[in-house]
């Protein structure tokens, strides 16, 4: 009986702490930046009053707030992708970057950015067409990798082998990216490298609605997968016996992962580690594998982690913004090591 009571108390405490952290980190991201804006100024601007200078208004509404929203949505999206893939592939190390989905999306972006940027860049104004075509490229790349994985999964039953195939596909995509880089123009390579470092401030306020809507649809679709995901914890044979349509569940799951990974990668670059570690943090916090609570908490934790990384990236205000992908491994690697070392003690592995 105790365990049951503990678990519901735990859920409440964990959600409360994460929500508090989410608000705190958002506030931190609002306040800190290369341009100093006083706190009361921010509060008054948020309350709808005119700012003392239009520059501050632009910084707040065109940069800081979009960055926060982007980080929250990206964090939630990547974390959910990780969880979906970990359950579906029955492998605690699955995530969009390890399975090659991010690399596939990157390849798509590289094709658009490097080939397009190199040859077509001057031909038409690329402010709007730029992001739509990048998005399309990322989506095509991510879905190609997912389709390949799906194809292999029809005759390769071992989840580990499938994971290795993902890694191989990832290498292939990387080699193509290198090749594209080799033949691309200098500016093309430069902007691709900058994009590849990852950052949450790449979504402009004009792009934000499209970005938010697509990510939200993906997140809602993920929430609807909770029931079959729980059945899949028992493996496909049990799930099938419980009435789950494995094929359509798997297809939906991969489609959701593809959309979320493609959109986040197109806008923010291939963000590493968040998809891998956040589901583990959420499991450790909640002490359960039950997707009813694990999935929403994974989203929340992902948002918090992304905001945390963003905050660290802007802390050295005088130097500029540190790339997100320089921060995520520093947080991610210790957590993965902790999990590997303690895996016998963690019930969700047994």
């Amino acid at each position, binding site marked *: 009986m105790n365990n049951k009571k503990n678990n519901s108390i735990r859920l409440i405490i964990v959600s409360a702490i994460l929500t508090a952290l989410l608000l705190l980190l958002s506030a931190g991201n609002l306040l800190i930046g290369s341009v100093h804006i006083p706190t009361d100024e921010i509060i008054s601007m948020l309350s709808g009053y005119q700012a003392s200078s239009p520059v501050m208004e632009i910084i707040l509404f065109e940069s800081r707030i979009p960055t926060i929203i982007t980080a929250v949505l990206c964090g939630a999206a990547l974390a959910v992708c990780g969880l979906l893939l970990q359950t579906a592939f029955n492998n605690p190390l699955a995530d969009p970057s390890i399975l090659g989905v991010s690399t596939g999306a990157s390849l798509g972006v590289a094709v658009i950015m490097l080939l397009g940027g190199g040859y077509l860049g001057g031909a038409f104004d690329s402010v709007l067409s730029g992001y739509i075509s990048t998005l399309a490229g990322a989506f095509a790349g991510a879905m190609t990798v997912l389709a390949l994985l799906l194809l292999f999964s029809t005759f390769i039953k071992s989840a580990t082998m499938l994971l290795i195939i993902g890694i191989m596909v990832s290498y292939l995509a990387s080699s193509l990216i290198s090749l594209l880089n080799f033949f691309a123009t200098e500016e093309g390579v430069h902007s691709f490298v900058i994009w590849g470092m990852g950052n949450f401030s790449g979504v402009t306020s004009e792009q934000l609605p499209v970005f938010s809507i697509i990510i939200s649809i993906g997140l809602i679709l993920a929430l609807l997968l909770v029931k079959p995901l729980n059945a899949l914890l*028992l493996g496909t044979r049990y799930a099938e016996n419980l009435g789950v349509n494995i094929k359509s569940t798997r297809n939906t799951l991969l489609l959701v992962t593809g959309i979320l990974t493609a959109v986040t990668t197109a806008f923010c670059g291939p963000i590493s580690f968040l998809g891998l570690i956040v589901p583990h943090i959420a499991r450790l916090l909640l002490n359960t594998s039950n997707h009813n609570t694990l999935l929403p908490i994974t989203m929340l934790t992902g948002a918090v982690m992304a905001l945390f990384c963003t905050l660290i990236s802007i802390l050295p205000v005088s130097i500029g913004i540190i790339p997100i992908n320089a921060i995520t491994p520093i947080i991610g690697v210790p957590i993965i090591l902790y999990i590997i070392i303690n895996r016998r003690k963690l019930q969700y592995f047994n």
Partner: protein
Amino acid sequence: MAILSTRQLTAGYRKGSIITPILTDLNLNLKQGALVALVGANGIGKSTLLRTIVGNHPPLSGEISISGNNINEISRQKLALSLSIVTTDRTQAGGLTVKELVSLGRQPYTGFLGILGKQDRKIIEESLTATGIAHKAHNFVAELSDGERQKAMIAKALAQQTPLIILDEPTAFLDVESRMETMLLLHNLAHKQNKAILFSSHDLSQSLLLADELWIVTHDRQLISGNTEDLALSGALNRIFASNHIRFDQKQGDFCINVPCQYKVNLICKDKILKRWIRNALRRNDIATDSTRQSKITIDASSPQSGIILYLQQKTITVKTIAELISFIRRISPELF
């Protein structure tokens, strides 16, 4: 009426144009309230047959009906209401509590989001109680012993409320106590809850004790089905293994080694239990105790309180234990037998 029946069923594998039938032309029936054991040697095709019956694997030919419906024609959802399974598959369920695991059995009945109603909760509680795992309801599956895990999986199958439960090697990884408990549980579910339960096993002695019916897969891939005792008496069990060195002992209800011994002795013993174990020890040392063959050596254990007496060439040796008897006999040179 049969819950499960097969007509001209052939189970096996198809790889391109190469067809490998494993078990052919099966006409089987499974009635409610019966516990049926599918027995046979390892690798003979028991699991293939079970996988085919539950619809995980397509049959090469023939029909399978569950509750009167051809399984190819009913939806997965409807099948989930007729048949529940317990497999030996590794799961990722360690981080679920036992109750959460058992709740998964209600999935065919719940809506899109899987929210449990009052009736669902009641059935989950009943399933936990019926399998004797209720005291662990809030423990993590990872914390359970193998036997408890098996009970939890059976509770999941019960919560699914299907007239038919099929289990693949439910006692394979269990110790003797858990094995007995699991078998008794299945027996009770069949008899008290009127379920049709089919399980595969290579542990024959347990199946003989508690199964109402046997489906025997012989070494040459014939399937013989029938009442447990009728089959035990018919000698059908001797057809499980191809080897002549193993024989089903109808008296003991288990398999025994059937290798002719090189030596023989005469054994006099009235106490049947003592006689059984002396014979066991002698047989292990290549010595038969066939009473029709006269031997130069006689062992008299008719009054064990004064010791076991060994007569050998006018000599008489008295020993207290079977260990002493055996260590003495081993020192006798072969030509003296």
